């Protein structure tokens, strides 16, 4: 089994299965924080996938994408938590089904 095949048939599937699981959490919530954690993780998985891609196609350019992805994930987390705390918490109770 070549490295390409290994990545294509093991690494990437594992990562996408992770995405599926994360997605379930994104959808289930129940609170906004849960979704934020999940989306955050989703971006992390994205970075992982990009790393695998960099190896797979021998393209280094994806690395910098990772950096921006990390920045994005961080920004969204901070923004969400910021507004979440600022906002009216009572409303979130509706969200806790």
């Amino acid at each position, binding site marked *: 089994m070549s490295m390409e095949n290994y990545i294509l048939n093991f690494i990437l599937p594992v990562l996408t299965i992770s995405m599926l699981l994360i997605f379930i959490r994104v959808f289930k919530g129940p609170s906004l924080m849960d979704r934020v954690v999940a989306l955050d993780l989703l971006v992390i998985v994205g970075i992982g996938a990009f790393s695998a891609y960099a190896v797979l196609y021998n393209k280094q*350019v994806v690395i*910098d*994408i990772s*950096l*921006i992805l990390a*920045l*994005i994930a*961080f*920004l969204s987390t*901070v*923004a969400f*938590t*910021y507004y979440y*705390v*600022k906002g009216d918490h009572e409303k979130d109770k509706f969200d806790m089904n």
Partner: protein
Amino acid sequence: MNSVILRTATRVLLPILLLFSVFILIRGHQEPGGGFVGGLVASMAFALYTIANGIGHARQIFPLSPTVFLISGLSLALLSGLVGLFLGAPAFTGIWGSYEFPGIGPLSTPLFFDIGVYLVVFGTATSFIFTLKLKE
């Protein structure tokens, strides 16, 4: 957001990210990146800083109105587009300097155009942030 951890982290991150954004901008012509992403990164850095340190602090290190960035960005892009026109070529003709600056390469109208894009994106995103912050 009164968290010393966040505050400290963003203060450390801001210069790094701004530098990184310029890096993204400059190398955009050769590798993935460019003015748009660069501008976004810069504004994200700024957004982080604003959220963590409050709009007052942010205003202190960023005294210009975002509109100034919009106007200067658009003007720069437009001017670099019109340079060709003044030289008798069609508008938006790329003009390249001969001297190769280290790390940047030759100065060129597409580069300035991209810088214009960077400024506009930065101005727009910052304007969003400030407006939404003001809204509270």
